[in-house]
């Protein structure tokens, strides 16, 4: 009984507001536009993330850092130090934004956050690996080197051409008694010495023309290798 006047009041005031036009229905295009904007944002963000992930993988192949964890604890240390952390932090930030946007959809919020987050991360990593296997980044890096990439040129030159003092991607040019001679992408020659302590995760069957990553300190044109491993091939621009 007590609720009756109140009920009537809410009902009446709403209908009155509708009638006098102070409350208006939003048109359907407004919602269609908003949904399209959200979907576009998600797709763009996902592509950006995949691009950044593929760039990180490309850069790590380019510098040789991708391969050093197979050289044991020191290799893992060098790997962690050489990770492009700024790009990784940007990626994490984008993943959080993407996850927040995706969770507006029932397929995402009905499941635990862990599942949708793993889905997003998995998509980014797989997409990144696929894109990094294409010549896209090599093409951009080549253009950046030649000054023909105005927008992302600095990014490619900064990350793609950096070198770490203990990670050396190179090509074998001659076999010696206790190691081999090798050449950097810029033509500089180095002598690599293999000792009994050198880690050789893929064996020691080296021959001229092999692309390798050498792990060790560079001193006066020579490296006493802590680890050496063959890689399929150096990225085109390091040859």
């Amino acid at each position, binding site marked *: 009984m007590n609720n009756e006047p109140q009920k009537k009041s809410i009902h009446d005031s709403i209908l009155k507001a509708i009638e006098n036009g102070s409350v208006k*229905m939003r048109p359907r295009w407004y919602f269609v536009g908003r949904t399209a904007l959200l979907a576009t944002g998600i797709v763009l963000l996902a592509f950006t993330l995949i691009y950044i992930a593929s760039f990180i993988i490309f850069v790590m192949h380019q510098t040789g850092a991708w391969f050093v964890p197979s050289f044991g604890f020191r290799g893992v240390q060098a790997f962690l130090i050489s990770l492009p952390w700024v790009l990784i932090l940007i990626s994490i930030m984008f993943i959080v934004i993407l996850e927040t946007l995706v969770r507006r959809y029932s397929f995402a919020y009905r499941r635990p956050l862990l599942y949708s987050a793993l889905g997003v991360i998995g998509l980014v990593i797989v997409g990144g690996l696929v894109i990094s296997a294409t010549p896209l980044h090599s093409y951009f890096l080549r253009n950046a080197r030649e000054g023909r990439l105005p927008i992302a040129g600095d990014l490619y030159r900064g990350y793609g051409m950096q070198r770490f003092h203990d990670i050396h991607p190179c090509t074998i040019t001659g076999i010696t008694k206790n190691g081999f001679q090798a050449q950097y992408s810029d033509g500089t020659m180095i002598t690599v010495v293999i000792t009994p302590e050198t880690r050789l995760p893929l064996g020691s069957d080296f021959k001229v023309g092999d692309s390798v990553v050498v792990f060790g300190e560079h001193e006066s044109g020579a490296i006493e290798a802590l680890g050496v491993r063959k890689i399929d091939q150096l990225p085109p621009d390091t040859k």
Partner: protein
Amino acid sequence: MAEQRDEDIALMVQRGDTESFGLLVTRYEPKMLRYARKFLFGFGPDDIKDVVQDVFIKAYMNIKSFDTGRAFSPWLYRIAHNQFINILRKRGTEHISFFDADTLFPHADHEDTEIRRHELAELKGMFDECLDRLDPKYREPIVLYYYEEVGYQEISQIMQIPVSTVGIRLKRGKVALKKIFDTLHPHHE
């Protein structure tokens, strides 16, 4: 004659029969008022009325976003949930976090309507006395489940959390309520 479905009325409103919106208001006003009273503690009757009125106004403004192939009730409750959470955030007396670890991992869940009815009869006194002291993240599913008789799936839709999290929040909410009750009545068996 069978009563018109909410979704059919919503479709009529979408097509321009704005008067029919009044039918939806009449149907849902008591539910919305109860939901607001149980969830928003410390508000006077006039404030509650204003909040519910805003919920209906938002529902009207956004009615063209409603998919008439789906149930109307969770859609309206979702609008109410957003409105209530915004008000609690603005008031700032209760902490409403943007992230909740409950939603992170999967939990086992099950729902039994009979248990719900039995529990409500048994625990109603405790709920009525202690609900205002409960964290809003537990209070809301308890209000929706026990008072509004909304199922796990719909609560998941309203709060946009995993279905299994609904179960875990209800369970933890009841445990927290019992603790509050025991603190208030130390000699109660």
